[in-house]
């Protein structure tokens, strides 16, 4: 599993907004680093690393979302969708491995043809499902790697809502009015 990128140039005394910007920019850079070209089939390791980085990015966004009122919702939802797909794909891979092992054992022990056919059918079903999920994943990833989308994300994370209400000084009612000009 790829280690998280270090969040640099922050200090405990900095305003929270500054840290939020640094954190999100770091996590975005990390997230996009694993599978840079959506037209190139990713390795299992690239997908795994992207899944982990996607979770880091989502958890980070959820942590600082109060500093970006309603502006991180799209990113968080997209990440959830992508991670659900990756999670389903990983579940299928795990179950395929288990079923393949069971199938080998049954073939070796001369199990009934019905049982073997059932397991083979199950494996075939999983393969189809995995292909479909991968197609959906690539669609989402193509969208997320578009330059316009990435630029938009950068703009959003760079501008947390850091408007601080400044209390206006109370008017000084004791000050004497300046004399009216003569003439």
């Amino acid at each position, binding site marked *: 599993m790829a280690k*998280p990128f*270090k*969040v640099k140039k*922050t*200090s*405990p*005394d*900095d*305003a*929270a*907004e*500054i*840290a*939020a910007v640094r*954190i999100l920019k770091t*996590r975005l850079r990390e997230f996009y680093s694993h599978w840079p070209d959506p037209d190139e089939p990713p390795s299992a390791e690239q997908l795994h690393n992207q899944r982990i980085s996607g*979770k*880091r990015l989502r*958890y*980070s966004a959820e*942590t*600082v979302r*109060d*500093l970006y009122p309603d502006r991180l919702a799209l990113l968080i939802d997209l990440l959830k969708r992508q991670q659900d797909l990756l999670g389903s794909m990983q*579940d299928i891979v*795990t*179950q395929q491995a*288990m*079923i393949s092992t*069971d199938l080998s054992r049954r073939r070796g022990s001369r*199990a009934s043809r*019905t*049982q073997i056919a*059932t*397991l083979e059918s*199950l494996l075939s079903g999983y393969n189809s499902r995995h292909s479909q999920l991968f197609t959906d994943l690539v669609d989402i990833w193509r969208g997320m790697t578009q330059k316009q989308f990435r630029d938009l994300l950068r703009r959003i994370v760079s501008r947390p809502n*850091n408007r*601080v209400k400044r209390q206006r000084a109370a008017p000084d009612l004791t000050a004497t009015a300046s004399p009216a000009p003569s003439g």
Partner: protein
Amino acid sequence: MLTTNGQRESTQDLAAKVFAELRTLLLSFEEGALKGDVESIHDMRVTTRRFRVALSNFAICVPQETRQRVKTDVNQLADTLGKVRDIDVMLDSLTVIEELSPSPGNPSSRIFTPASRAAANTTNRAWFDTCEVLIFVS
């Protein structure tokens, strides 16, 4: 953002708030997880991941030695929760297989017995007695 006393929120303030919330969340799943509830175990496991991400994001706010100790504890909890979770996932998968191809002598379903799940869960209980992370954010 302002703190409750009207001061501008610092990175340290934000970090303290985040860790306090995560601690509360972790503890909220304790009872269910110790009873072996599947959802509580899963939710607690997710919270350990959030903890690790927070430790990485706010590393500047936590002394390295403390950070390392807390990280070790959180990793240990995640590992033991993971073992129970893996058994739960396997049990679900084996149920699917058995429903599709029932066999009286099927050894697969006997691999992950309630006893092995209970053994993994016992480790979770021991963790709560000595957890550094719960002390760290209090």
